[in-house]
Structure formats: C-alpha cells, structure tokens
C-alpha cells in the first residue's frame, strides 16, 4: 500500500478531510440558535477542512502506485463493500477545490441567509463532505453512496433558500439526477454480480484481464448506464435543462458549489469510471459524445449571448465550458485530458467567483436582470474591478487560469479531429462576446437607474471572499505547472489503455 514511508497522518488524512465538515455540521446541531456563533463556527470548520486538505497535494508525490493516501477497510462483508479511499493527481485538486470554495460560500452567505440559519450551514457542511467523498472513493458502492448523498442537501438548499420558482427547480434537479443515477446503480450492481467486488481497482483489472463473464455483450449498456448519470450532472447537451433553473433559483452559495464542484462530479465520473472502466466503449462512442460536447459548447454560448438575466447567462456559460471539458476527455490525447482537468479547476474558481459577484449584486438590488443595471463602475469601482478580473479569467485571457485549460483542450481536440478543434475554438470566441457584452451593459456608460447611484461598494467581508478567487485565478494562470505536474501522471495512467488500443488498430 506504500504507506510505510508516509508520516503518521498518511492513512487517516483522507478520512479526516472528508468527514471534518460533516462532523462540524453535526456539532452545529448542538450550538444554540445564535446565528453569529453558527456562522463563525461554520467558517472555522470549513477553513480547518481547507487547511487539512492542503496536506494532500503537498505530500502527493510520496508512496508508490497511482492512488495515494489509500485506506482500505472492510465495511460490509456481504455484499463485499469496502471503505476504500484514495486519490490521484486528478481527484486531489478537486478535493482542494471543494474545500477552497466552501469557506468562501460561508462568507458570501453571511447576510443573505436570514432565516433557518442553523439548517443552512448544516446542509452546506454535509454537502461538502459528500462532495469530497465523491472524489476520494475508490469503491463503487462508496462512490454511489456519496454521489446520492450530495443530492439531498443540494436539493434542500435550493428548495429552502432559493428565489421565486425554487421548488420547481429543486424537484427538477432532484429528479434529473436521481433518474440518471438509477441507471448507474444498475450498472454497478451488474458489475458486482459478475465480479463479486465493488472495488474500482479490482473491477478495472478484471475487465482488462477479460475475466468478467458476459462483459463483451454488456459493455455498451454498462458504458451508457454510467454515461447517463454523469451526462446529467455535467450536463451534456440534451440533458442540461435542469441547470439554468437550478442555478437561477439557488441561493448564491448553492450556485457556487453547484457550478464549482457538482458539475465536476459529472466530468470526474466520466474520466474516472466511464473511461477508466470501459476504455474500448469510450473509444467507440467518442464520435457522438464529441458531437454532443460541441453542440453544448456552441449552443451554451449562443444562449448565453441572449440572456437578459445575469445568473442565467453564467449558468449557460457553464454548459459551454463543461462541453469543452467533455471534448477534451473524449479526444483521448495527453493535451486534451490535461486541459480538461485544468478547465475543471479553473472553471470552478472563475465561475464560482462570478456567481459570488452576482450574489453580491442581488443582495443590494434583489434582481439579476442586466437591464436593471448600467454604469455601475461609477458607484462601485472595487466591485467592477473584481468583476472584470473574474470575467477575464473566465473567458480565457492569457496569464489567467481560463487560458491554459482552453488552449490545451483545443490543441488536444485539434490533434484528434481538426474540424472539431476549429468549431470548439469558435465557442471560446463566443464566450468573450457574451461575457464582455454583459460587462459593458452592467458597468459602463451612465448610471441609468437612480437607485444604482447609492449602491455601496464591497465591504471587508465581501473582499475577503473575493480576494482568494482573484489570487487563485492569477496563480493558476502564471504557474500552471504546479497543478499540471500532479495531473499529468494520472492522465497518462488513464490514457494507457488508449495507446494500446491505438497500436492494436494500427497493427491490424
């Protein structure tokens, strides 16, 4: 297991990072209903989880094997379910992204959540644990458990604290995800029925050795079973309709985590499980998946262009960006996969930031309509600066984080299929259009509405929430190798079956 030369934290650090938030959430139950104490406590807990999670990338290079910090204990003997956790260079950053965004979510919700404060922060922290668990599980059953566990707190956050049509949005979100994941469950149970194990590594080896009876006939259905669950989450083009509703109605913290982390559960799942377990089927089905991704990129961008609602615009831009991620994954090139993982992180930071900024504006004016604003740069110069910085990061300006991932994905897609690369590049251009046009309409020109003249600029708390976003966007853009050096080995391992596939095709 390679944990011999690790320090004493080695085997338990992953469980600590995963369960600190939920434990904190349960402790909040015991705190009397004094809102200030609850908020402070939630902030401390989420910061603690963040600090603990930093241990992971710092010590990632230690130990052998692809998965680090592994822990493998029997949970249930029959069926054979293990508490098996471990991370590689891909999941480690997603864990850190989650723990990075959660304290900011606590800060941004400080004043916007006035009612049922206790429940809000409990749900937020439980959601954080479930999200981290999704990225750290190596047992398919454990993975499914955390996957479903994200559903309830998120649906409740939308339904209890959202705006206008929150109930419709929450139910739609719940049902879409639930129906998708039922198919994944059936596929997981099939794999268990044939291999007698839920362990990702064991099943992966069994499939590669060809020792799973009936796999040849079933593999397409298994691939699709996992694919539907992940495609709903990403969301891939025809299954995206829940996303704008959920985003527009969700409270700010919900939107941040939804865009920042929940969508990445889908792309992470595609990469780890769909591609990892069924490389041959992934290869075979790549053409239509890439077409769907392209449609998502362009369609998302075009719909963003015409949105009158700021939050809906950012939501559709997510459809577009996540399309790029899927395109990168299914290009099966080193550059494409590295870029896909990098976009996952960069999008989490930049779009999380955009949703926070939109939320700050909503707190002041209680609307997301772009037409309600205009000329905001005059009364709110600091806010305008942060907004511009985040917009530029999101649209992929060189030296900021969006650029690296987009460039890598486009070059990967171009290697795989030049036409797809060119089409995807137009999507990047569109993203500059809709984001800058939105920025122009909100911030430039004269103040059109009298109320906007008196809007207060950012206060200290809001700045504390936005600075980390800006710093992260800049550092990731300037020194991407810090991230990519960890991502690349994991990507190479994921790509290993494809080089074999390709050589076999060439050999024939």
């Amino acid at each position: 297991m390679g944990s011999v030369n690790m320090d004493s934290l080695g085997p338990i650090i992953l469980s600590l990072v995963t369960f600190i938030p939920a434990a904190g959430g349960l402790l909040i139950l015991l705190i009397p209903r004094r809102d200030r104490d609850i908020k402070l406590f939630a902030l401390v807990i989420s910061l603690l989880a963040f600090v603990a999670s930093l241990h992971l990338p710092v010590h990632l290079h230690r130990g052998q094997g692809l998965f680090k910090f592994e822990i493998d204990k029997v949970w249930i003997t029959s069926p054979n379910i293990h508490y098996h956790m471990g991370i590689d260079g891909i999941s480690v950053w997603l864990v850190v992204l989650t723990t990075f965004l959660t304290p900011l979510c606590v800060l941004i919700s400080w004043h916007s959540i006035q009612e049922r404060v206790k429940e809000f922060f409990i749900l937020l922290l439980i959601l954080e644990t479930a999200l981290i668990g999704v990225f750290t599980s190596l047992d398919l059953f454990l993975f499914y458990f955390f996957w479903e566990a994200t559903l309830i707190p998120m649906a409740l956050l939308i339904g209890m604290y959202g705006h206008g049509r929150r109930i419709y949005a929450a139910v739609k979100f719940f049902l879409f995800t639930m129906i998708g994941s039922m198919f994944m469950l059936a596929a997981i149970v099939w794999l268990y029925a044939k291999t007698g194990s839920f362990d990702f590594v064991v099943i992966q080896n069994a499939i590669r050795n060809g020792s799973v009876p009936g796999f040849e006939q079933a593999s397409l259905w298994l691939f699709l079973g996992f694919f539907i669950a992940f495609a709903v989450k990403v969301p891939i083009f025809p299954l995206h309709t829940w996303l704008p509703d959920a985003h527009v109605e969700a409270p700010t913290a919900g939107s941040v985590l939804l865009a920042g982390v929940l969508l990445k559960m889908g792309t992470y799942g595609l990469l780890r499980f769909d591609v990892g377990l069924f490389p041959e089927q992934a290869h075979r089905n790549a053409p239509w998946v890439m077409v769907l991704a392209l449609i998502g990129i362009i369609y998302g961008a075009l719909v963003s262009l015409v949105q009158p609602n700021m939050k809906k615009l950012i939501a559709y831009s997510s459809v577009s960006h996540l399309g790029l991620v899927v395109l990168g994954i299914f290009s099966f090139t080193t550059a494409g996969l590295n870029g896909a993982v990098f976009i996952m992180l960069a999008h989490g930071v930049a779009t999380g930031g955009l949703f926070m900024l939109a939320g700050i504006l909503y707190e002041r004016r209680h609307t997301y309509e772009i037409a309600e604003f205009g000329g905001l740069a005059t009364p709110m110069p600091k806010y305008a600066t942060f907004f511009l910085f985040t917009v530029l990061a999101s649209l992929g300006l060189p030296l900021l984080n969006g650029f690296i991932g987009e460039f890598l994905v486009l070059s990967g897609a171009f290697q795989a299929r030049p036409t797809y690369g060119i089409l995807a590049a137009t999507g990047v251009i569109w993203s500059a259009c809709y984001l800058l046009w939105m920025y122009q309409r909100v911030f430039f020109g004269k103040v059109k509405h009298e109320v906007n003249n008196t809007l207060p600029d950012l206060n200290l708390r809001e700045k504390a929430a936005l600075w980390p976003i800006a710093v992260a966007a800049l550092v990731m853009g300037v020194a991407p190798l810090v991230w990519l050096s960890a991502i690349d080995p994991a990507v190479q391992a994921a790509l290993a079956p494809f080089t074999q596939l390709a050589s076999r095709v060439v050999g024939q």
Partner: protein
Amino acid sequence: MTTLSHSLPGLLAQVQTFMPPPGADYMRILPELVLSIFGMLVMVIDPLLDEENSHQALGTIALIGTLAALGSTCWMAQYPGTAFSNMVRVEGFSVFFHFLVIAIAAVVILSSFEYLKVQRIRAGEYYGLILFGTVGMCLMSSAIELVLIFIALEISSISTYVLAGFRRRDASSSESSLKYFLLGSFATAFFLYGVALVFGATGSTNIDAISLALHSGGGPVPVLAYVATALMFVGLGFKVASVPFHVWTPDVYEGAPAPVVGLMSTGPKAAAFAVLLRVMFEANAPGRFWLIWVSAALTMTLGNVCALVQNNVKRLLAYSSIAHAGYLLVAFAARPELGTSAAMFYTAAYAAMNVGAFAVVTHFANVGEKYVTLEDYAGLGRKSPVLAATFTFFLMSLIGIPITGGFFAKFYVLSAALKSNLVGLAIILVLNSAVGAYYYLRIIVMMYMREPRGEVPVTPVPAAAALAIAVCVLLTLYLGVLPGRVLDYAAHSAHALVSDTAASSTASASLATEP
C-alpha cells in the same frame, strides 16, 4: 358409510394409542402461546378497569406480552425441528419472521398509546386483537401444513378486519372494514380452493410432501398443480396487495386507524410473503415464474403511477406499499436461494421504515384523523423540525437513498434479479424507483419548502410514540449502515429452506429465464 365402518376400528385404535405431544412441541409454539395468554389477559383485565385509566395499563400489558414473546422466540430458536406431527417447523426462516412480526406488533402497540386516548377508542379489544392477530401471523411463518397455514391466515385476517373498523365514529372506517372483510374472505376462498387442488394433484397438504411429489417422479407435473399455484397466488396476492388484487388497499388504508395501517401494511404482509416463499420456493410450485414476473411488473408500475396523483398521505402510502410489494415480488422471480434472502431482508427493512412512517402520520393526524392531506404537512419542517426530519428519513428510505435500510433492500433485490439474469424486470424496477422518488419528494417539499398553515396544530410527541419512532429510525439506520448481520442470517436460513429443493428448482429456473 362403508368406508366409515371400515376405518372406524383403525380410528379407535389410533385414539387408544394417542400420545400427548412431547413437551418440546410446545416449545416450538412458545411465542404463540405467550401472545395468546397475554391477549386473554388483556381481555380479562379490561372490564375490571374503568375506561379512563385502562389505556395505559392495558397497553403496557400488551407491550410486555410482545416483549415476552420476543424473548420466548429466542428460546424457541433453541428447539429447531418439526412439531405436532409435521404441522409446524422451527428453523431459521420461521424464527426470522417471528422476530419481525412480533417486533412490528410491539412498535405498533407503542405508537397506539396516545392514539387510542386521543381518538377515544376502547383499548381492551384493540390490544387483544393485535396480539391475537400476531399469533396468526407467527403461525403463518412456521406452519408447513397448508391447512394450518389457512387457519393461521384466517386468525390474522379476522383480527385485522375488525381492527380496520375501529374508528367507529367515522363512516370511512366502517367502509374500510367491510370492504376488507368482503374482499378478503373472497380471496381466502381462492387460497382454500388452491389448497384443495394441490391435495388433488399431489395427495398431500404438507409442503415437504408436495415438493417431493411435484419434483421427484420426473414425469410431467399435473395440470391441476398449475391451476392450484395460480389460485393460491390469488389468495396470497390479495394479502400482499399485488396487482390485480390490490383494489382494496387505498380505500382500506385511508379509512382504517393510522397505527392499524402501520400494522396491516407490514405485519400480515410479511407473514403472507413468508407463506408465499414457502409455497413458491419450498414447495417448488410449478409455473410460478411468469405469473410472478407479470404480477411484479404490473404491481410496481401501477402502484407508483397511482401514487403520483394522491393528495391524502395515507392513500399515498397505500399506493407506495403496493409499489413496494412489487419490488418484493421481483425477488420471487429470481433464483430461490438469492430471492428468498433478498425478500426476507426487504420485508424487515420495509417494516422498519413503514411502521415508522405511519407512527409519524398517526401522531400528526390528531383528533378524528383530521390532518392527513398533503397540504396539512406544509411547513412542518419549521413547526416541528425533529418530526419532519424523522419523517424525511423514512421517506428517504422508501425512495431508497443510501444509509437507509430501504436502499439495501432494493439493492439486494436488484442484485438477486441481475444474478438470475432478469434484466427486463431489473430495468422495470429501476425505472419505477425513479418514478417513486417523485411522490415521496412531494411530501418532503411540502414539509420544508412551503409556508406553514396556521390552523394545523402540532402537539409535542408523547414519550411512547417517540420511543416507537426512535426504534424505527434506529432499525432503518442499522439496516442501512450495517446490513451484513441480518442479511447473513437471512441468507443462512434461506439456504436451509431451499437447499433440499435447490437442485430441481435451479433446473426449472434456468429453463424459465427471460428470453
């Protein structure tokens, strides 16, 4: 006349050599004896107490009775074997269902303490009937003689018919009782007819003898046996509310007292499933596969689709119980050994979550069961966070979300189905669970996302009901986090149950897999 005169000397000789059954035989029906004694005790003490004080005292006696019966079940488990000339058999299987059924009765009695007082229902008959009904359910699980099974079925049915009509001031309760009684007796007649035909086909009413007669000769199975299987399935299908014998369920559940519905939807159902397991798997009934396949598919689909549009929580849960019966039937189409243990686990998990859910509904319904519509639940999350949270937990279990017993129950059924190559049925199950999520979610949405309505009062949960709910929560959680022990036990006893017939039944099952 001649036959009688011929057999008379023999009969006399038998009577003369009649030996009382050995003491161990009585040990093998000890829980039934204990429950009967306590049932009579309740009935006797009832007139001695004045009505005001009797609720608490009688309830306590009944509760002690069930607890004593649980203890005696442990004792009974020490004496495996048959009793009363092969009428009753104590084995892992029957001990499992004894535990389950008696535990259900205990929790239902706990949750009735407050209810009877609020609804002003006489306690003596109520608790007595629950105890006697439990005797019938226990016997159903351990009887291996079809005639005794029938008698046990009637014991449990008759007490539930009466219990359903206990809200005498409410016409819907009387309607419920009458409807249940008329249709129920009709259905049991089918079962009896089936028993008669089995006797005709095999010359015996003993499960083991039937199994032997049906599958040892190697010759063709008589047509009569197929008809008998179908008829017995009609009778038992009524009891477990499988489509198309489900029509009574929503009306009866809507009218009957809420804690009784908690009992009805789990106890007699579990016992009927136990009988079904015996008849289908142990007796190795011929032609069962497609019968169950079709019924399971219809039951799941119809239950879920109808539940989508219900506005009365009791009716909604009635249709949900139909849907769950459908999921359970999927296990009956699987290979005997896998299917039996999955079905046993499912009945246990379903009992824990459904009795819990009805305990919450019972408490919330208030005087005269006024508050049972979905709208009444609006804003419960604000008014009573703990009650709403526990109800949400039960509903999540009914949906099948992980860390609840309901998830593993569905999971085992699904994996039993997939291991038996029932891909079609597995897909229907998966789609149905997705549909099912919606209507449970409607209740959760009501509780948490709507503004409370002022006029619905929420009284604090009294200690007994709280204890009942807590027990259900703990059991649901236990089955959801550490299902291993219960499943191992179920698998073990399932193995013992079907091992003697496994060889022949796997042969027939492999013939009958889906195209």
